[in-house]
């Protein structure tokens, strides 16, 4: 499949994530949207990695090009996991204090 | 070594003063050290060859900035003024008491260090450093020991001058990057080649800073309030020495570095100055407050100096040199009188004063000398300066000079009006129990009056001291 399809798909997922972050009010859903953004990137990276790999092995069959893209995905997964745990902990902590996961009330800090 | 000493002595002794708790001790200490500085300054001015009056050591080699200080004619003269002013102020205000006197005198001495540094700096960055350093202690002095509205007023003063100096910093940097050898040294600045537009830009950045400091109309609004609210000792330094920083900087840093822009803008600035002179004089006539009157009168005098600087001819420049020194002497004298009146009688309003001459004849005589000097009557020191300056202004443009001359008449009006209202007429409740001035004040006023008269008759020392500068500038 042409690379454009992957780019479009990933951008669509990414945009859904961004729109979700900007419009939703539930902290958990916002959080999920962020994860969606990260996974869109993962997908894109793998697609690009494959693309570069394909281009490289056409020239040199032993080429390792493209490995770094997939490697990056691993790191993103790890970091996402770390973020998930910290984020969950924060949301739980907040929930225990406020009994709500609505981020509208965050405006209270303004004053 | 002399210039370094001139800066270091007040700096270190000032820092030490912070540690002294006893008020009496610190007063004596401050007076002593300022006298030492005076001795050093006098020695430096007349007893040392020029070669020994510069000192350069590496400071920021990466930036092309050195710790370079040196005394040329104008520097000598202003250092002398600074060195004289401080002991005079200390003696005159000996009887005033301050909370935390240690800090007060410490900050005063730091101010002296800063001022001296400004006059001696031979390096643009160093100059900027001292320019700001002189400001900070004054800010604290005024804000802690000043009058009722001190905080707001001083803050205005501070923000104004700080803004000005930041603009100057931008200007300094601008010039710095156009110097041939990327150096802040004054020589490099003098040799810098800038196009007309570049000169214009940098010129105004510098000028704004100096204009705020002097202050020139329309940047003067901070000044009367600040003078009124500051403790008198600080006001003396502010108007006697600090405003000279502005004039000094015009001569030292503006004219030689941007000759083209200076002559291009001269017309605007001179007209502004003259407007300022007349405006300040007119307001001074309407004043009921002694301090504010002196403040406005000071604006008028500074306006004349600024105009004469931009007239850019030998006569005018010589006048400026003389007047810088003399105005300092005169205005300090006036402030001392104002301080005495305020301390003794608790008021500065003319409407509440009168007939003081009967109670305090010595004060009356001495004030009269100062007042006449303020009008620039012949035989007083100010006469020669103002005469030369007007002369220079006439050479520049007859009409402008003619308009400016009106301010002489106005000066006579408000000064004599002041003298009359305070000293003559009937005694009022405030002055009924007044006594004559104490020994300290009498001594300082006599010294100042002597200076007024001696320099009025024989101004040669000052003129010869500064001829080299005048020549250098006009070359």
């Amino acid at each position, binding site marked *: 499949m042409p690379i454009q399809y992957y780019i479009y798909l990933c951008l669509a997922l990414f945009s859904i994530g961004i729109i979700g972050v900007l419009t939703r009010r539930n902290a958990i859903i916002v959080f999920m949207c962020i994860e969606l953004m990260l996974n869109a990137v993962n997908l894109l990276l793998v697609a690009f990695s494959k693309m570069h790999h394909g281009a490289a092995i056409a020239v040199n069959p032993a080429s390792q090009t493209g490995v770094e893209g997939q490697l990056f995905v691993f790191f993103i997964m790890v970091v996402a*996991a770390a973020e998930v745990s910290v984020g*969950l902990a924060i949301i*739980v902590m907040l929930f225990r204090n406020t009994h709500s996961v609505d981020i509208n009330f965050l405006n209270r800090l303004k004053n | 070594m002399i210039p370094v000493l001139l800066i270091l002595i007040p700096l270190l002794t000032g820092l030490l003063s912070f540690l002294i708790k006893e008020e009496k001790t610190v007063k004596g200490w401050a007076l002593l050290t300022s006298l030492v500085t005076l001795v050093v300054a006098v020695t430096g001015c007349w007893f040392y060859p020029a070669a020994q009056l510069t000192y350069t050591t590496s400071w920021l080699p990466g930036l092309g900035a050195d710790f370079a200080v040196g005394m040329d004619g104008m520097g000598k003269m202003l250092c002398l003024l600074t060195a004289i002013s401080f002991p005079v102020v200390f003696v005159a205000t000996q009887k005033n008491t301050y909370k935390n006197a240690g800090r007060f005198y410490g900050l005063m001495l730091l101010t002296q260090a800063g001022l001296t540094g400004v006059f001696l700096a031979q390096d643009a960055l160093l100059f900027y450093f001292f320019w700001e350093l002189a400001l900070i202690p004054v800010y604290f002095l005024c804000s802690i020991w000043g009058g009722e509205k001190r905080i707001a007023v001083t803050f205005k003063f501070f923000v104004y001058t700080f803004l000005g100096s930041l603009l100057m910093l931008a200007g300094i940097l601008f010039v710095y990057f156009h110097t041939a050898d990327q150096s802040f040294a004054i020589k490099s600045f003098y040799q810098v080649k800038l196009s007309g537009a570049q000169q214009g830009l940098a010129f105004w950045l510098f000028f704004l800073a100096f204009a705020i400091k002097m202050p020139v109309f329309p940047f003067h609004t901070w000044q009367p309030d600040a003078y009124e609210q500051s403790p008198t000792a600080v006001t003396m330094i502010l108007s006697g020495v600090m405003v000279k920083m502005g004039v000094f900087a015009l001569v030292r840093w503006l004219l030689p570095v941007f000759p083209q822009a200076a002559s291009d803008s001269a017309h605007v600035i001179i007209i502004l100055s003259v407007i300022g002179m007349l405006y300040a004089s007119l307001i001074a006539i309407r004043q009921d407050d002694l301090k504010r009157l002196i403040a406005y009168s000071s604006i008028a005098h500074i306006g004349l100096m600024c105009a004469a600087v931009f007239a850019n001819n030998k006569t005018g420049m010589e006048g400026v040199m003389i007047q810088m020194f003399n105005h300092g002497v005169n205005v300090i004298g006036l402030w001392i009188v104002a301080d005495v009146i305020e301390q003794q009688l608790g008021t500065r309003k003319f409407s509440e004063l009168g007939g003081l001459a009967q109670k305090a004849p010595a004060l009356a005589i001495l004030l009269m000398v100062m007042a006449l000097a303020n009008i620039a009557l012949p035989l007083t020191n100010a006469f020669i300066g103002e005469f030369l300056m007007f002369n220079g202004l006439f050479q520049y443009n007859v009409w402008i000079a003619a308009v400016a001359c009106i301010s002489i008449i106005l000066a006579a009006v408000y000064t004599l009006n002041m003298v009359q209202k305070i000293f003559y007429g009937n005694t009022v409740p405030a002055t009924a129990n007044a006594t004559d001035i104490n020994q300290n004040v009498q001594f300082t006023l006599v010294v100042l009056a002597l200076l007024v008269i001696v320099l009025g008759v024989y101004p040669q020392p000052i003129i010869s001291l500064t001829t080299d500068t005048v020549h250098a500038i006009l070359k």
Partner: protein
Amino acid sequence: MNWLFLLSDAGHSNSAANYLPIGIQLIFAAGFVATMIGVSQWVGPKRKTADKLETFASGIESHGDARQPMAIKYFLVAILFVLFDVEVIFFYPYAVIFKELGWAGFSAVLMFVAFFIVGFIYIIKRGALKWED
């Protein structure tokens, strides 16, 4: 109909075509489940009463919402799982190629395991895995 070409290149062992049967099976399984639910819905009797539709609490009337804050321990397990599972994920690629990496790779993994264990000991010491109250 571009996706259908997936079917044509089933020769490679590592191509998207290998996953197509899984897709078919998914459709098959989901269809089966849906049918069965539909059938039972259709066949079963429908006599609803208020008692039937209440949540069951052993015959006692149930109070309030069941979705109340629960013990933090469960969250802790979830969080720890996420962390450690990701660490485990790293062993998989290693396990596949560890022979090529040799002892150097082994020492690197030892270091990784050391970090794993350090974290593990830490959570145990901090009492994150203390279940009995």
